């Protein structure tokens, strides 16, 4: 038994942990958890824990149901919100086939594969997400949505629940070893933003899974409801997850080139060009729900057209202001992502699009300095700006023909994802919503 495993088992003993939760993520980005008694954990480390893959979204059909979850002892963490008396701890798992080979259905492995492609090209991929979400007074099914406050962007609200909430959530995240960079009140009523410290993409994705759960738990403790739904209010901004991206070659930031325009290296320019070229086909992954496209239609901080710009908050890709002392902090910001994505898959397709740009040496079109929303459609056409898909349906169609996405996700996940999303769109098409009632009933 290695020392980390030993440490985990000893800690469980010493801290009186009664339950151990084994975590993994399904194809749609939902956290899955299976609890084992501490006594069973040792066996789980050795042999993994068999489970029925057909019960998990996107994992397996009935005929190939046997799968194995192998807890990764290095991800051991005690869950801080369950109180001291009956402790609970968690570990992330990798999903394996019964022959020990990694499962193509495991989103974590999709990301690992993409990262190792980047590594073959000499790159490591770092991400830094800014996660937005809403705090509501009421849970789903308890009447019309009511935000916890009506403050706005950066408002300091010392008496408000939001303030306590952010403090508690951050304390809890830090207790679980997840560093938080920044937090503040966002633009919408009750809307919060918490930025995670930049880290390698796999850790960030793990951290995001933990983050969403922690935020929900803390909200529950305070009697409010937290949601990562991309666009809960028609009239307030949606919850995006602007994500800063950078590639490193060893210790050197591969996006940085002193003296180049905006200090952007050729690698960075081709990477951005890759993101722009493949933006439509990766949309279904970066913005995976019907509701995601309501956020993109809403303007504000959400991009609608495919373009990039230096410090341009209306562009899909923003190149932040360069800080002369920090060559290693050169990065780009991808702004279409929303907080409800599956971070493993989303980071994979984003990275793959960028790498494709580098491999093929895509040329970066000129950047846009304008406020893209202020342009007329004719102007946008003249500037060669294509729109992002405006609906899940368009995004599905773009993805369906994409070799890039198929290769990145792997055929299994690609196939499942498309089937699932088509079903979602079909179901949505059959809905009659309040807006239609309000608009048409009096008229017709």
């Amino acid at each position, binding site marked *: 038994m290695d020392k980390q495993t030993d440490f985990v088992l000893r800690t469980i003993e010493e801290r009186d942990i009664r339950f151990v939760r084994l975590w993994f993520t399904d194809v749609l980005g939902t956290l899955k958890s299976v609890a084992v008694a501490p006594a069973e954990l040792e066996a789980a480390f050795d042999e*993994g824990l068999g489970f029925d893959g057909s019960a998990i979204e996107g994992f397996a059909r009935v005929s190939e149901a046997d799968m194995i979850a192998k807890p990764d002892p290095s991800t051991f963490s005690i869950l801080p919100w369950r109180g001291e008396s009956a402790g609970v701890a968690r570990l992330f798992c990798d999903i394996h086939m019964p022959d020990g080979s990694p499962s193509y259905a495991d989103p974590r492995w999709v990301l690992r594969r993409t990262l190792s492609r980047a590594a073959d090209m*000499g790159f490591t991929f770092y991400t830094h997400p800014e996660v937005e979400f809403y705090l509501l007074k009421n849970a789903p099914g308890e009447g019309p949505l009511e935000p916890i406050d009506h403050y706005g962007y950066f408002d300091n609200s010392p008496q408000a629940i939001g303030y306590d909430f952010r403090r508690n959530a951050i304390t809890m995240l830090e207790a679980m070893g997840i560093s938080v960079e920044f937090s503040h009140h966002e633009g919408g009523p009750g809307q919060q933003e918490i930025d995670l410290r930049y880290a390698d993409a796999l850790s960030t994705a793990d951290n995001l899974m933990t983050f969403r759960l922690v935020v929900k738990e803390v909200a529950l403790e305070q009697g409010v409801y937290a949601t990562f739904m991309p666009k809960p209010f028609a009239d307030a901004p949606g919850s995006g997850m602007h994500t800063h991206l950078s590639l490193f070659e060893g210790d050197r930031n591969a996006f940085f080139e002193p003296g180049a325009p905006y200090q952007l290296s050729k690698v960075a320019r081709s990477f951005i060009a890759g993101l722009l070229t493949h933006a439509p086909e990766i949309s279904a992954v970066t913005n995976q729900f019907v509701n995601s496209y309501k956020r993109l239609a809403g303007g504000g901080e959400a991009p609608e057209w495919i373009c990039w710009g230096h410090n341009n908050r209306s562009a899909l890709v923003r190149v932040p202001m360069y800080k002369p002392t920090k060559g290693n902090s050169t990065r780009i910001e991808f702004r279409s992502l929303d907080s409800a994505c599956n971070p493993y898959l989303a980071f994979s397709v984003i990275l793959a699009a960028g790498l494709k740009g580098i491999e093929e040496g895509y040329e970066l079109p000129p950047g846009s300095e304008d406020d893209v929303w202020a342009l007329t459609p004719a102007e946008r056409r003249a500037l060669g700006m294509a729109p992002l898909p405006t609906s899940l349906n368009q995004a599905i169609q773009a993805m369906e023909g994409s070799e890039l996405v*198929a290769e990145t996700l792997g055929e299994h996940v690609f196939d499942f994802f498309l089937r699932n999303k088509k079903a979602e769109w079909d179901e949505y098409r059959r809905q009659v919503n309040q807006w239609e009632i309000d608009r048409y009933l009096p008229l017709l």
Partner: protein
Amino acid sequence: MSTGRAISATAALARAGFVDTTAAHERVSSWSIDDDLRASLIDDLSSAADPDQALAALADLPPEARRQVLADDRTRASFCIVCGASAALGRHLARHPEHIAVLSQHEIDADVIRQDLLDAVAAVDTPLGPCARGSGFDVLDELRVAYRRWLLAIAVADLVHEERFDEVSRHLADLADATLEAGLAVARADLPTDSEPCRIAVIAMGKCGGQELNYISDVDVIFVAEAVSPEGGDAGDEVAALKTATKLATGLIRACGEHTAEGSIWEVDAALRPEGKAGALVRTLASHIGYYQRWATTWEFQALLKARPAAGDRELGSAYLDAMADKVWEAAGRPDFVVDVQRMRRRVEEHVPAREADRQLKLGRGGLRDVEFSVQLLQLVHGRSDVMVRSPTTLTALESLATWGYVGRDDGATLASAYRFLRTLEHRIQLQDLRRTHLIPEADHDLRRLGRSMGYHRDPVAELTSEWGTHAREVRRIHEKLFYRPLLQAVARLEPGEARLTPEAAAERLQALGYADPAGALRHLEALTSGVSRRAAIQRTLLPVLLGWFARGADPDAALLSFRRMSEDLGSTPWYLRLLRDESAAAERMAMLLSSSRYSSDLLLRSPDAVAMLAEESDIAPRGADQLRTEVTAALSRHDNAESSVAAVRAIRRRELFRISAADILGLTDTVSIMRGISGVTEVSIEGALQAAIEAISADRGGIPTRITIIGMGRFGGGELGYGSDADVMFVHDPLPGTDDKEAADAALGVANELRRLLSVPSSDPPLEIDADLRPEGRQGPLVRTLASYAAYYARWSAPWEAQALLRARAIAGDQELGAAFTGLIDPLRWPADGLTDEALREMRRLKARMEAERLPRGADPTLHTKLGRGGLADVEWVAQLMQLRHAAAVPALRTTETIAALDAAVAAGLLEAVDRDELVSAWLMATRVRNAIVLARGKAGDQVPSAPPDLTGVAYLMGYGPGHGSDLLEDYRRVTRRARSVVDRVFYGN
């Protein structure tokens, strides 16, 4: 000087081994030395590997130095031997004549070397370690000169004092340690005065760590550093300390690797560190431990076997070693260990550029790396429970493995001596130019020098080549000796005083080699090898090799069991074991079949003597249909009743199917030839059986009043049968003029039924199922129809698309004239002159769409169903058949029963894009291969690509995917068929 003396002098020179005697004579004569000295010199030179080269080196010395060499007997002898074997050291002495004294030195001591190199850089002790006087090129030059002086001293010990390889390579490692220490001292001199103090240890890895270094080689290291905690104070600033340590490490790398006027020493390679080249150059001990706990892969643990503190802080170095030792010994317990190791072993064998393979000492099967790797593997497997086999040095480890019974003693000793020989050879090759090479030279004079340097003076080239051959042969059998032979010992009667594998160790070993059921395997081994019979004796020598071959396949356990059954069946047959023993190709091929294919194993076990055909590649090549037909005719004429005739035909078929499956598994043929082969043997068998059936019924009824022909349908008609296919047929007959229709029909039906019975009657040969369900009206229709009845039936048809099934119809046996009449009847139907109407096209598309929805079995994964799934066989064939129905009337090339030929014709006629054809054909061939592999692996047919082990593993293995790569097959299959499907959507459905 008289000519006579010159002649006798050159003759003496030639005897002494000179090649260019004239030049040698001129050189020696030009020096004013007395005759005795000249004679002694020539005598000394005659012992040199290359006397001409040694003499040239002597001539190149400054006169004063030459006199010094000549004056002293020991120095002179030593000079000749060293410079005769190394041109580079000759050049060194010409440049640094002050090193001549080293030639007569022979004390080599690690501490002395270390002190000497530190003195060379004028190092003074500081609390954190020695610090050189500077780091400029002058200092680096001094270090290089001192390094070469010691290298020369080691060459003297090696060549002159003939120390064993073990000592020489240890000296070289000592010298490397000292150089690293001095390099560190140089780096320290370069530190800014305000640097945060740190402790740093240099851990040698690889050959340096194992103290078995080459003359010229990179030196692999890992750096570990800690902040210094002042007396009683808190630990220092770790970040700053690591910064200092990184500077030291970079400085050390530069101090050794930098090219100066005196050249460079060697590259210090830190790539074995955590995260490789992307990782931090220096880590703290805790960070190293953290990494190996979480991330490290099996090969990294294997590398750690050789870790040894070489320079810097001793205490920190030992702490590192202690911490890592635990990690290493846990590695073999990791679940991925076996798969990892197999992958690593394949890589060791694969990475040889083919054109140099026969001159390679290091890489490839039986190369030095293979020996080292195999020893390490055994250490990882057994070192976990036995501390006695943990040495970082290959030879020591091998010796202890032998002592404690993990390797046979004789095998251990033979391998050790082969390893010593090959490493010495490598040393001698490197010494000549002090270049890093592992290739045996090609030029004759190089080989001659090499031979003489190894002590072969009579016929250096031939002796060297033969000796090398002997040792290389031993090493090539290394896996057999190291891994497998000891397993037999474990189940054998023990000779007194001999250690052997315990049952637990044998189980560990079998598991590490890929056997899933070690207890069962040991039982089989015991059964196969116990006793004093000749059979047991031969099997004892065969099994170590076979076990290794079995282990390469997907199911070694099944292979061992099958082999046991074969041997029980055939063991007393004289030729059987002799064949396996003497024709090792036959044994290897048999092992491959037994370990990867239940279908092939079954065919072989039904009739084990077929193993004989595995000896020759030409015997495995599938027979053409004509040759089979001759054999069938001969068989029929030998037998006078239908049962025994058809039994003979079926035996021919069984043997041929074995041949085709063997050629398939051994990679001696391709998918299209396999389909043709299986279709061919099926046709010939049906022909034979038809003839026998006609004779039998004719005898019963007193003649057959009708002509009979058999039409192949579906894949059989296309010549595209697989191992698992039934033969789809239709029976046609045509009553002879003036006979009663009923009479004729009864006779024809009798023949058809007799044919089917004969081909499926239970026997030791596999049955051939005849499927006539594609006939008009399917199972409700009569089994046999007259030509006229077919004509009437087809005349009633309304929709041209109903002719689709007829596209594949081909007369395969029976009356040829009738066959031609039948095809003449259907040609206008299947290749309609007007093609398809829009309505018929729509109907056909709709039919296909409905089939996709309805025919797929419930719960089947459409992405993995080879027949009806997305981009599967049906998809591709329907594309081809649609083209045929629409255009065959106008495009004669489309009138074929073969799918690929039809698609090719469509491309040629401009009806299909070549890229689309390629996507379709790859998917169709892949689905075909998967279907064949399913039958081969499992012994029975299946439509679904198996999606989980163990079926997936076996199928993936047969398709060329290595262990643990089954999921990759699924991924590739889905990708290829998805692309084909997008073509189908476009071309077939017109989307």
